[in-house]
Every structure is written in C-alpha cells, then in structure tokens.
C-alpha cells in the first residue's frame, strides 16, 4: 500500500516464472504456472486474515488453521448435501452449489472466529508467549472437535460436474477448477483491495496497522474494529479452506495444520502485517510448490522452506515489512 513501487520485490514473481521455463516444456510450464497461481490465490485467502490480525493487533494466531479446517468440512458437507446441483451438468447450478458451500464455510468460520476472539484471545493481548500457547491449545481442541463432529475418516468431496476435467490451450492442459479458484481469489482480492483502500473502515484498519495508539487517541474504538477484522480473517480462512478442499477433493482433519505451515511461510516471506506482501508471498509459494513438485516431487515442502530462507537472508523482515517494529 505504501511504497507501492518496490520493484525488486514485485519483479520476483515474473523472474521466477521465466526462470522455470527452460527446465520444462512449454505446455507443462503453462499448466504448472496456472496451477501455481490458483494455489497461490487460495493461500492468499487463508493467509490474509492472519497477516491483518497480526498487523493490526500484534496477535499471532497459531489457531488460524482451525478456521481452514472448519471451512473445509462445512464446504464438504454442503457440497455433499447438494449433489442434485453438483451432479447436474450446468454451470449455473454448479456455481450456485459452490457459492453456497463457500458462503456456509465463511459464515461458520467467521462465527468460530468471533467465539475464538471473545473466549480465548481477548485475555492474552500483549503477551506473545501466552498467545502462542493459548492458540495452539485452541487449534488442538478445534481439530479434535471437528473429528468428533465429522468422524476421523477422510471425507470425499464431489467436485461440481462442470468444473471437472480440463481444457486445452495450445497443447497445455488447464484444469477448469483452477481457473474458477483463481477467478474467485481475484474477485475477493479486488473486494478486499477496494475495502481497504476506498472505504472509511479500510482507512481505519490501515491506520491502525501503521499506528494503533494514534488511531485510539483520535477516538476510534480499535478493539471493535479488531473484532471485525478477526471475524473477517477467519471467514476468509474458511473460504480458502473450502476452495482448497474442493480442489483436493478429499478432506482430513489434518488439513488445517498442514496449510498453517504453508500460510506461515507465506506471511514470513511477505512480511508480517503486509497485504501486498501476503499476495506476492502466496503466489510465490504456490508457484514454487508446483514447479518443484513437478521437477523433484519429494522436495516440495523443503523447497518452500528454502525459498523462505533465501528471502530472509535477502530481507530479514520479509519482502514488504511494516514500517514499525
């Protein structure tokens, strides 16, 4: 948002995409780049809440993955219940089913976020140590409750009919669902961008990230603002989880924990608290995962960690660090 033209960091993505080209055939490259972009957009949804919550209130929520898990399971249930719509070979009905699943996931995860903030987090502001401990406890309890509610075995998710399969663009196979995921991610990114940059609430959020005391001194209730951001962040994580679950087509209770690790890498790369950094970090992680997953499959998580290490060596605070410490 500020320092919008940090070209070295922004150019990282195109350079990475171009560097990958000589290592594989053109059609594979197109497929993987689209896949990476789609994964990046889903990661962005999951990570945005985490980074905003940290930026605004200096709270690091280790239980963010719980909202991802919840969103995934709710979406699985909704899509499972709407088989009539998902099995029909009609874009309209399919989109409606997906939209219903995503909306339900967002609502449940947002509600869980509200509960979380009220019950767990409000009492541990200011102490990172306690925050980490409490939220790890919260993550464990939520994951176990999800298992109690949905059972320990993995759930299969029917992907809507029209979004199955792929289409060919000049020899490169592109999965339809990935395009849908990327489009939805872009829409939500656009909405968030406008919300943050063109509205009064967004202005307050950005001001709070820059200097919380000053906003409070000017008479705004930053606590209430924060609850809103926390709920919105949880809802976004739920949407991300729902999209990811429909992408994987199976969901297990470990999905939240697994994605938390990638989400952490994303926000460390991007710089804790930065929205732009979050987007670039997410796409970077998505691309690296897909390229390396193709070139050397067993190393894919290692490669994202390596990317994080390299970026921290270059910029110890991440790509787009906040001005304050």
């Amino acid at each position, binding site marked *: 948002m500020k320092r919008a033209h940090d070209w070295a960091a922004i150019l990282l993505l195109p350079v990475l995409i171009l560097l990958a080209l000589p290592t594989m055939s053109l059609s594979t490259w197109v497929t993987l780049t689209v896949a990476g972009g789609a994964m990046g957009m889903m990661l962005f949804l999951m990570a945005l809440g985490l980074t905003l919550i940290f930026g605004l209130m200096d709270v690091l929520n280790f239980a963010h993955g719980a909202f991802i898990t919840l969103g995934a399971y709710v979406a699985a249930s909704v899509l499972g219940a709407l088989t009539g719509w998902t099995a029909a070979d009609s874009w309209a009905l399919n989109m409606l089913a997906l939209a219903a699943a995503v909306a339900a996931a967002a609502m449940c995860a947002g509600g869980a976020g509200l509960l979380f903030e009220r019950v767990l987090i409000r009492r541990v502001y200011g102490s990172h140590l306690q925050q980490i401990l*409490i939220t790890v406890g919260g993550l*464990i309890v939520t994951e*176990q409750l999800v298992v*109690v509610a949905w059972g320990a075995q993995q759930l299969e998710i029917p992907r809507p009919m029209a979004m199955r399969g792929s289409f060919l663009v000049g020899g490169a196979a592109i999965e339809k669902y990935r395009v849908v995921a990327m489009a939805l991610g872009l829409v939500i990114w656009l909405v968030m961008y406008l919300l943050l940059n063109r509205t009064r609430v967004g202005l307050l959020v950005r001001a709070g990230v820059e200097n919380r005391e000053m906003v409070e001194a000017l008479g705004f209730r930053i606590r209430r603002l924060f609850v809103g951001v926390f709920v919105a962040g949880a809802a976004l994580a739920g949407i991300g989880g729902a999209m990811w679950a429909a992408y994987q087509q199976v969901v297990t209770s470990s999905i939240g924990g697994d994605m938390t690790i990638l989400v952490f890498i994303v926000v460390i790369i991007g710089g804790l608290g930065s929205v732009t950094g979050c987007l670039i970090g997410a796409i970077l992680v998505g691309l690296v995962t897909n390229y390396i997953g193709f070139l050397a499959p067993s190393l894919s998580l*290692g490669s994202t*960690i390596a990317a994080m290490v390299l970026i*921290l060596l270059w910029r110890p605070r991440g790509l787009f660090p906040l001005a304050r410490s």
Partner: protein
Amino acid sequence: MRFRLLSNDRPGHPVATLLVVLLFLALATAPFAFPGTRSVAVASRICVFIVLAASYDMLLGYTGIVSFAHTMFFAFGAYGVAIPLARGGVGGGAILLGGAAGVALAAMVSALIALLSLRVQKIFFSMITLAVASFAQILATQLRDLTGGEDGLTFSLPAILGPGFRLLREPVLGVRIDGRLITYYLVFAVALALFLFMLRVVNSPFGRVLQAIRENEFRAEALGYRVTVYRTLASALSASIAAVAGGLLALLLRYVGPDATLSFSIMVDILLMVVIGGMGTLYGPALGAAMIVLAQYYLQPALQNAADATAGLPLLPALFHPDRWLLWLGTLFILIVYFFPAGVVGTLRRRGR
C-alpha cells in the same frame, strides 16, 4: 553448601520439595519398588521425558522463546543411535558415535534456525521451527533407506543391555539383576546427571542473562549482552540435550519410528509437561513429565470406561473415545495457561513467599 549439587536452587515450597523428593525416590527404586515390565517401562519413560521437558523449559521458561521443533531434535538423537545399530553396528562405540552425531546435528540445525530467525523477531522462530519440524517429519517417512519410513527401525542392543544378560546369579529382593535393569539404571543415571547439569546452567551467570533477556530484551541489550548470541546458544544447548534424551528413548524402546519420536502429539505432551509443572522452574517440568506419562499409561485407558458407561447417550461416547485424548489435554492446557500460568511449582512458590 548443602545444596551445591542442586546449584542452590531448591524447589522452593515444602509441598513442591516433597513431590520432587518422592519422584526422585520412586524413580531411583522403581525396579524394586514397582516390579513388572510395565511399571519399569513407565518409570524409564518418565526419566526420558524429564530430560526432554526440562530441556524445553530452558528455552520456553528461561529464555522465553517458543520452539515447535523440539521433537525434531529428540528424533535426531533417537535416529542417531538407531541407524548404526540397525545397520549391524555393535557395541557401545556405535551407540556413542551415533548419539554424538545426532547431538551435533541437533546443535547445528537449531543454531542455524535461531541465527536466521531470532535476529529479526522472536515470533519468526516459532513459525519457522513449526515449518522445519513438519519438513523433518516428511523426510523421516520418505527417506526409507535411512530411517525405515513409517515403520521405523527395530534393532538389538549389545548383549550387556539385553534381558539374557545376568550380572548376579541370584535375584536381589526378588528382582533379577539382568540387562534390562542395567539399561534402566543407565537411563536413570544419565537423566539425573543431565537434570543436575541443567540446574547448573540456569543458575549460572549464563542462565541469569537468559532470564534477563526474557524479562526485558532491550534492557539486556543496553547492558551490553548480545541477545541473539545468547538466545542462539540457549537454543543449541536445549536441542543437544533433547537429542540425548532421544538417544535414551531409542535404547529403551529398541525401536525408533516417526510416531514415537517426531509426531506433533509428542510436542503437545512436552508443552503440557512444562506448562502444568511451571515454566522456568525446571522442577516443575520434571513433575509435569511424571504426571503426563502416568496419565497416558493409566488414565487414557480409563477414558474407554467412560465411553462405555455413556454408550447409550448421544455425543458423549464420541467425546470420551480414547482417541480423543488430545481434546482433553488441549482443554486442560488452555485452562492452565489461563488460570495457573505459573504451573504447579510456580504457584506453590508464590504462595510460599
């Protein structure tokens, strides 16, 4: 002078002292006081986890940083001992060499993570350890040739530590003096020595600096202490001791696998031990380790009874299923962090003053 062995750091409250003395006596006499394979297995597991939890406390309680990679260092030590033995290495030399390699690897990796992350922000350390630990978990299951994958490694120990070896022909107090007994006392002695060593470390000038950094980072830095260096050293030391604990576990189990050493649930156990017992007290985590291990062996099976008793009711059987053990531990964990953040020993100490 009387408490030099304890570095003049006493539990600090009569009840805490009593508990610690009882724990020590119980562990010192376990094979005789509680004969039977199962109870000796429990006692030796308690010894290992006392070392593991206390070494974690040096990091969490005394230095104030949260690591999620402690089980990874634990696993380095365990696999370090297991790999040479599983490949036909024999004798104490293979154990010592493998264990030393594991400890060295743990110290190096932890120092690298610390140097990379701690110079910026403490939270980075927590996040990065989480990522690296899960990568280690993947590696342990994928490098099948080295680690045995999901199945892990089974191996046999030198004959002197096996059940066939008899030190004395006649049983003492009705207990056979065999290799398993020697293994137990080996583990007990190493655990005791390491615990006393950690007491020494946290009460040394080095330990005081760590506590100063925990209390006020800027002030410590202003006084001229290089905060990152101290934190890195603490992290490497704690990781090395965790690796030794891993080696001990490998000797006890004669088996090493991802679930036994690396899983996230063990990380949760360690966190619970330290937090229940009391962060920053060392005695607390030792008591916490005993409590959690005892609960796992004797309370977790009891959950099944609760599940059976409520079989007709809705929802309750699912909540009481033994596999939902973590649900109850997690709830307990949250309650303790809220209401007794000082843990058992810390709360007692405060009351004693």
